């Protein structure tokens, strides 16, 4: 979450004081992202240093000091709105690591590990849904933030469901005597392939890139 750009967005509506910015920030994010007043003033100082906002009043820091956005600030804000966040490199996801590790630890049933996490996620989703049912009904900002959380958690549950299905199928394939990984014999012509079929290098490839 860019506090810097959120403050620019609030100032694009007109000049505001520091405390006012804090209140409007929290209200605008459905009060899900708290912001302390020190963080507001530190950010405003940096924005002023970079020429993106100007202060008004007698130059003394304090609650009576107002801020307004500059032309450079407006351009910075527009540029930020139109720049997609970096979603290209997969984050090092702790849950993905736990599931991959669970596949290797002797005596561990990966499906039991998956279920512990699935239950936790669904319980968390139940809590967010309670908020949607009660407080978010009349608060569009809060409803949007809650939706974002629910979709994010839902995606993780779906991934766990997919892991469950793949692990079950791989076990059935092993019982039936066929290899779980894609058989190289099908790609006999691809003799130059550098792909390694073992689980660890594949896991590394999938999660190795970090932001």
């Amino acid at each position: 979450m860019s506090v810097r750009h959120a403050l620019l967005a609030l100032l694009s509506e007109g000049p505001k004081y520091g405390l006012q910015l804090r209140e409007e920030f929290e209200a605008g994010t459905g009060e899900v992202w708290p912001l302390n007043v020190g963080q507001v003033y530190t950010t405003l100082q940096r924005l002023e240093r970079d020429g993106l906002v100007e202060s008004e009043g007698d130059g003394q820091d304090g609650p009576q000091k107002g801020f307004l956005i500059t032309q450079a600030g407006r351009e910075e804000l527009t540029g930020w709105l139109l720049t997609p966040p970096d979603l290209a490199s997969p984050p090092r996801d702790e849950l993905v690591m736990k599931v991959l590790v669970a596949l290797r630890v002797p005596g561990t049933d990966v499906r039991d590990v998956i279920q512990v996490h699935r239950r936790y996620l669904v319980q968390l989703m139940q809590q967010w849904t309670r908020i949607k049912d009660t407080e978010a009904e009349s608060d569009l900002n809060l409803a949007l933030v809650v939706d974002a959380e629910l979709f994010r958690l839902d995606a993780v549950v779906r991934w766990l469901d997919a892991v469950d299905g793949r692990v079950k199928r791989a076990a059935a394939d092993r019982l039936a005597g066929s290899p779980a990984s894609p058989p190289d014999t099908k790609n006999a012509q691809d003799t130059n392939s550098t792909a390694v079929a073992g689980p660890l290098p594949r896991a590394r490839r999938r999660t190795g890139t970090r932001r």
Partner: protein
Amino acid sequence: MRHVSRVYGQGAAKVQALHEVDLDVDAGMMVAVMGPSGSGKSTLLTIAGSLEDPSSGEVRVCGEELTKLSRNAKARLRRQTIGYVFQDFNLLPGLTAAENVTLPLELDGVPARKARVAGLAAMAELGLADRASHFPDMLSGGERQRVAIARAVVGDRRLLLADEPSGALDSVNGEAVMRLIHTACKRGLAAVVVTHDAQLASWADRVVFLRDGRVTDQTMPAPGPESLLTPGPRQPGPGQ
């Protein structure tokens, strides 16, 4: 449900769809049953709705043990006490929305005028008052499912059974469907919603997880929403 099992086929073709399932749903509660395809979710629902008998075990609805009821008594229970909501709505295309809603009451012998009053009241509660004389093909997907819910709760129903009730609806309409079922529960209905969708399941008071015909887990009562809205560090997840 107590020790409910359901077996299909015999010998090598034997399939154990449900295995010793215990499930309690109190009045006013919504329970979601989650599990992958083939985990026994739909079998559980059809047995709870007396549309199918268990191979063994006991099923009670409002105190009545289903396996001890005659066919006629079961049919009456289905008409009067249990409402069903299906993925594909199952509305009769030749009847208007209001006629679809009142059909179970009329089949049960309720006079047409009285049935219509009850039907229109149920539709009004679901925001369908101006759709009463529309035929199903004149309604949107979301409206059709609301009609189906009105049909499932009309009269004095006590148990609502829903199989993937948001079906192919988009997320906003799917949420509207869950809100309606949730509201019906607040009025005292018991509901069982079968789904593989965690967002829908999260409307339930309790989520039961089914795997290979067995209940393997369920959610604990969740802490209140305050824990997510209070400033400060979030609660850590398991093992983090």
